[in-house]
């Protein structure tokens, strides 16, 4: 498994969304899911192992937050596909107009 496959799992993706809003404890994260607390801990461990989230201690609690670096790299990569289709869909607009003028 790699970081992208780690993100393909719906629960982990939802965890990432929750952490995108703010730093949270494992308990807070678990409260958003019907899954058992140990299940959520396993997902958090996977996300940590792939460097997608990081943790810091806050007294008794451990707070989870997003590690922005891999996500930025992922985003840059997806941007390439986005730019490709963005350009093509602009060209499609031109083509639709051209066809209309031709008829």
């Amino acid at each position: 498994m790699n970081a992208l496959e780690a993100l393909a799992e719906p629960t982990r993706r939802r965890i990432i969304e929750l952490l995108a809003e703010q730093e949270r404890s494992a308990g807070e994260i678990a409260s958003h899911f019907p899954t058992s607390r140990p299940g959520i801990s396993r997902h958090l461990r996977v996300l940590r192992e792939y460097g997608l989230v990081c943790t810091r201690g806050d007294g008794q609690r451990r707070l989870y937050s997003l590690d922005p670096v891999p996500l930025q790299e992922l985003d840059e990569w997806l941007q390439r596909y986005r730019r490709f289709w963005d350009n093509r869909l602009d060209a499609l607009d031109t083509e639709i107009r051209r066809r209309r003028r031709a008829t």
Partner: protein
Amino acid sequence: MRLTRYYRASPDEVWAAITDASSIARWLAPVHDLDLAPGGNLELKLDSGARLLARVRAVQTERLLELDWTPPGEEPSVVRFELTPDGDGTVLALDHRLIDARVGMRAMSRWETHLTRLDVLIGEVEAR
């Protein structure tokens, strides 16, 4: 990855532009082969001279075209065009999903390339 666009044209006009070979050549890439029946092939000639092969997964005239999308050297991903009438125009939703994770990882882990190169160098030194 999902993009949506509004075109000031009816769904049949947009559909014609995304399925007609001479139109595809103008907005996407020159067409080498085109058969838009389910299981049919769409083959595009890329600037590099390589061919991109797309196979029709699903097709519903003026509504939906879903393709297995295989650029040269990449694992297949899925590209889906979906048309919805909207007032005087048409909304096109383009979905490009199941993009091979390994392609992403190659782009993501620049450091990995450096490490591999380092391994190769170490190997060369040891082989001497």
